[in-house]
C-alpha cells in the first residue's frame, strides 16, 4: 500500500512539527546563498509553521536574475547535477542538485509511482525527454529506486515505442497526455490494439495541463489507469504531487514541500479549498533551497482526508498557469477551458491549436481542429453542423465567440514534446 507508511500516514500535526523543523533548517542553509543571505538576513528561527507567511516570496524573475550561482547554498564541489529551463529569452532558470538532493527526489518519485500501484516487478518505459528537462531523469531514477526495470527510451518514434512495449511487456509508462493520444493512433494504424496486444497497466501522465476528460479518454483507449502528476524543475521536477488510487486530487508531499495558496493579485494566503496560485517552499533541498516560490500554477488545496489513508493534503488538477491566461477582448480565458470543451465533443478530433489575432482593434480567437478521419461522413452540411456545435459550446464555456475551422489530418505540429497549442499573433 505505502512506500513509506510511517511518513505517508503520519497525523497532520506531526507533519507540521516536522515541517517547522525542516523549514528552520532550510532557512539557515538558504542564508548561505548570495540571494537569501540578503533576503533572509533579519529572519530568525520560526516558532510555528504559520510564520512562513512572514517570509518573502521568490519569483521566476528572481531565479533568472540570480543566474548563474546566486541561489547556490553549498560549495560547487558538492553539486552533482544541473537542470535548466529552456531559456528562449534572457537567462535560463538553472537548478542545482547535490547527491542527497537527487536521492530524496528519487525517493519521492518512487513514492508517487508506488502510490499509483507500480511495484518492483513492473516494466517501466520512460517516454519523457531526457536531458536538461527534468521529466525524463526525475522519474527514471524514481523508477529504478522502486526497482522497476526501466527502459530509458525517451520521446517520439511511435513505432519504436510500441515495439519495446510488445517485446518487453511494458506495464507502466511515463507519458505526456497529448502524446498518449497520438501514440494510440499510431498503434491503431499498425493494427495493434493495446488492450489485447500489450500488457500496459499504468500511465503516469503529466508535464502539461490536461483535463479530467482527456485522462478518461486515455484510460478508455488503452484500458488502463492513468495517474496525474505534478512537479516543477525549480523545486526538483516531477514527483512533487501525485494521485493515489482514488484518482481524486494529488497528494503533495508535505515532508518535501510546504504548499500555500495565495491570491496572485493581493498576495494574501487563502484558506484550503480556495483557488489561487500555488506557492511552494522546498524544505528538503541542499544545493538550492527555494522559499515561497510562486509557481504561477492555479489550483486549490483539497481539504478532505483521503480514503487511501495518506495524510498529506491534496491539490486539485492544475487549472492553468497565471501566465497562460489569454485576454480576449477583455475576457480572461485559460487554454484548458478550450481543451475541455473539445474533449467533450466526440466527433471532434483532439488535435487542435488556438490562434489569437487582432483585426480592426478587436481580438479574434480561432480554433483550428484537425479533421476527424473517422467521423467524416462526406457532407459539407455535417461539417458545418459540427463547426457550429463546437463554436456554441466554446462560447458557453468561455464567453468569447471563436471561429472554428477544420484542417487536414496530420498537419498540426506534432505533439512529441510539450504540445504547443496557443499561438498569439497579436502585436505585443
Amino acid at each position, binding site marked *: 500500500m505505502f512506500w513509506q507508511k510511517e511518513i505517508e500516514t503520519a497525523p497532520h500535526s506531526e507533519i507540521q512539527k516536522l515541517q517547522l523543523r525542516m523549514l528552520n533548517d532550510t532557512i539557515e542553509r538558504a542564508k548561505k546563498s548570495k540571494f537569501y543571505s540578503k533576503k533572509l538576513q533579519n529572519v530568525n528561527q520560526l516558532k510555528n509553521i504559520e510564520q512562513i507567511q512572514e517570509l518573502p516570496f521568490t519569483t521566476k524573475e528572481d531565479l533568472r536574475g540570480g543566474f548563474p550561482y546566486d541561489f547556490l547554498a553549498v560549495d560547487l564541489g558538492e553539486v552533482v547535477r544541473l537542470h535548466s529551463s529552456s531559456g528562449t529569452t534572457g537567462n535560463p532558470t538553472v537548478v542545482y542538485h547535490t547527491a542527497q538532493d537527487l536521492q530524496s527526489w528519487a525517493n519521492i518519485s518512487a513514492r508517487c509511482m508506488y502510490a499509483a500501484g507500480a511495484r518492483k516487478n513492473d516494466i517501466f518505459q520512460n517516454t519523457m525527454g531526457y536531458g536538461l528537462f527534468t521529466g525524463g531523469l526525475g522519474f527514471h531514477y524514481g523508477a529504478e529506486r522502486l526497482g522497476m526495470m526501466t527502459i530509458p527510451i525517451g520521446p517520439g518514434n511511435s513505432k519504436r515505442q510500441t515495439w519495446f512495449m510488445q517485446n518487453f511487456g511494458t506495464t507502466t509508462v511515463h507519458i505526456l497526455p497529448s502524446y498518449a493520444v497520438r501514440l494510440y493512433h499510431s498503434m491503431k494504424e499498425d493494427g495493434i490494439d493495446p488492450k489485447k496486444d500489450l500488457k500496459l497497466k499504468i500511465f503516469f501522465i503529466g508535464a502539461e495541463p490536461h483535463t479530467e476528460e482527456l485522462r478518461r479518454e486515455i484510460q478508455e483507449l488503452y484500458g488502463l489507469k492513468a495517474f496525474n502528476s505534478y512537479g516543477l524543475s525549480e523545486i526538483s521536477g516531477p514527483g512533487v504531487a501525485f494521485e493515489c488510487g482514488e484518482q481524486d486530487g494529488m497528494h503533495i508531499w508535505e515532508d518535501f514541500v510546504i504548499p500555500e495558496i495565495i491570491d496572485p493579485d493581493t498576495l494574501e494566503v487563502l484558506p484550503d479549498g480556495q483557488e489561487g496560485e500555488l506557492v511552494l517552499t522546498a524544505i528538503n533541498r541542499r544545493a538550492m533551497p527555494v522559499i515561497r516560490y510562486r509557481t504561477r500554477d492555479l489550483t486549490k488545496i483539497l481539504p478532505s482526508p483521503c480514503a487511501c489513508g495518506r495524510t498529506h493534503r491534496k491539490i486539485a488538477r492544475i487549472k492553468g498557469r497565471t501566465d497562460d491566461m489569454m485576454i480576449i477582448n477583455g475576457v480572461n480565458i485559460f487554454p484548458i477551458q478550450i481543451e475541455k470543451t473539445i474533449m467533450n465533443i466526440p466527433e471532434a478530433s483532439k488535435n487542435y491549436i488556438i490562434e489569437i489575432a487582432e483585426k480592426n482593434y478587436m481580438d479574434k480567437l480561432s480554433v483550428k481542429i484537425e*479533421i476527424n478521419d473517422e467521423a467524416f461522413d*462526406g457532407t*459539407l452540411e455535417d461539417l458545418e453542423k459540427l463547426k457550429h456545435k463546437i463554436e456554441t459550446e466554446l462560447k458557453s464555456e468561455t464567453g468569447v465567440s471563436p471561429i472554428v475551422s*477544420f484542417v487536414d489530418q496530420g498537419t498540426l505540429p506534432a505533439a512529441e514534446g510539450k504540445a504547443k497549442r496557443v499561438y498569439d499573433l497579436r502585436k505585443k
Partner: protein
Amino acid sequence: MPFHLSVFLENKPGRLEKIMKVLSEHKINLSAMSLASAGNFGVVKLLVDDPQKAFDELKKQKITVTKRKIAAVVIGNVPGAFYDLLRKLSDRGTNIEDCYGFLLNDGKTAAIVLEIENQPEAEKVLKDIDANVLDEDKIYNY
C-alpha cells in the same frame, strides 16, 4: 451499388492539387467532380474510373476521404431535359442532396450523377419514373 468519393479539402493553395497528384500517379481517371466550400474548408466529390483504388491510395496519403452512394441518369443534351428529371423526382418527394453532370461521348446525351447516400428510396423512384440509369461499370468507364 456505385459510389463516388467525398474528400475533405482545406481551402488552401495546393490542397486540390495534392489530391489530383495521387490520382495521376496511380493512373486513375477523373470523369467529373463538384466542389463545395464553407469558408476555410470544403468538400470535393470525385467520380473516377477506379473508385476503390482511389479510395485506398488517398487514405494512404492521409487524405480524409469517404465513399458515398450515387446513381447516374442519362438524359438528352437538350433544353429542359434536366428540368424534366428534377420535376419527376420532386413530384415523388425525393430531394437531391448533391449532383453534377458531364457530357457523354456522343455529345447528344449527358449523365447526371445524383448522390443518394441518405435516400435509399431514390433507386426505386428512378425505376418508377423510367429513368435511364447507368450500370455501375458504365458510370466509371463510359
